[in-house]
């Protein structure tokens, strides 16, 4: 589980060293406040939420939170470099690097961790609808980017096909 926590912290802050620092501080806090963990809660959901909450807490104390949330493209790209396979998907990485941290984490939780939207919402302390909306917007934008297409105009909505809770 620890590599998964580290990946979460890395993707959040956009750099390996900073991710390690955030994770260490968040772990210290978790240890100090372990009583807040409720038995029955999935450990990973709890831990991801704690890391995210700690990052928000630290960000709130900064003079310019928006500037602090920006990432270095080179350091962010280094997260994805694999020595063995040489796999490096530059367009996807550049796209991810251009997203706000919360949107990157939404993608990580749902497509990287395979979380249900409800669990992703719990980690990021937002509604399930927010997660769904983010996924739609980001997925469509990425698909457009990868196909060299201009972002599509809003399409007509077939209301009858909407599942409960997915209606805008």
């Amino acid at each position: 589980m620890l590599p998964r926590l580290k990946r979460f912290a890395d993707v959040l802050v956009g750099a390996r060293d900073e991710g390690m620092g955030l994770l260490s501080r968040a772990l210290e806090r978790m240890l100090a406040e372990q009583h807040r963990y409720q038995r029955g809660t999935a450990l990973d959901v709890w831990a991801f939420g704690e890391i995210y909450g700690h990052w928000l807490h630290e960000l709130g104390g900064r003079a310019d939170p928006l500037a602090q949330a920006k990432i270095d493209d080179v350091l962010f790209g280094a997260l994805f470099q694999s020595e063995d396979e040489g796999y490096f998907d530059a367009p996807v990485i550049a796209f991810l690097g251009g997203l706000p941290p919360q949107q990157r984490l939404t993608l990580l939780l749902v497509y990287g961790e395979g979380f249900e939207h409800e669990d992703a919402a719990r980690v990021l302390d937002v509604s399930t609808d927010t997660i769904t909306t983010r996924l739609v917007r980001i997925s469509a934008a990425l698909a457009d980017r990868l196909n060299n297409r201009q972002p599509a105009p809003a399409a007509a909505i077939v209301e009858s096909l909407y599942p409960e809770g997915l209606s805008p």
Partner: protein
Amino acid sequence: MTELSDELLVAYVDGQLARKQTRAVEKVLDQDDILAARVEALKHAHARLEAAFEAVLAGEEAEVSAASATAQEGLVIPWGVARTAFAGLGLVAALALAVAGYGWPLSLPNLLQTAPKAAGWQEETVRAQALLSRDSLEVGLESQANYDLVAFQLAHILGAGLKFPNLDAQGFRFKRAQVLRYGDAPLVQILYLGSKGGPLALYAKRGEGSETLMPGRYGAINTVAWAEDGVSYLLAGDVEDALLMRTATRIKLEPAPPLPTASKPYTPVNDALNQSR
């Protein structure tokens, strides 16, 4: 061309639609190449996202393996890890190790893995194997029926005033005991069985720690851990947590026995020495 929104198509690609809605979308896709291409583009985008995140995780796992290889030699289960395996709040032990700067512990990520990669039976078995030592087999089965002899043997092996509680009053009968190991240090396991359910085990090894009874849980196994008089204890079993805590309290309140000494075999000299005391 039928127009379906990206919102609906993403929900379809992510498997968020009900079966009836999925069939309806598929029917439309069968007849509309443009929408089908859009769905393929969304699937392709998601697949590349998954691959990218997988690459980050591979890097982190490689880092953990490298750190663990230097931190741990051989396949020995640390007491902390063994304890973690039985402790409900196992995360705390993992976090403590990480924060303390001992490197990323090799076994903990698997112990704590929740969904994607469950440890296989081989891995779990090797962990159990690592707890066995020569002493595990050298405490003969014929001695197991002799409660006092087992207590004597275990206390001597442990080299400390080991509590060897009689839990008949709690509904658990002593069945057998053996000596496992943590590295080169002995780890005593005393097994009891109630009228139903799995075994109750009291583990003990030399060591310091909090005297407070600390409840925990690992899967279906409830645990209580504490330390006293230079011995660290762990009571573990598929037992209701309140009963386990009462039993642990009962053990803790029991005074620790002095380290037993073996009675010397009868010889005229020993007999004379005993009589002169």
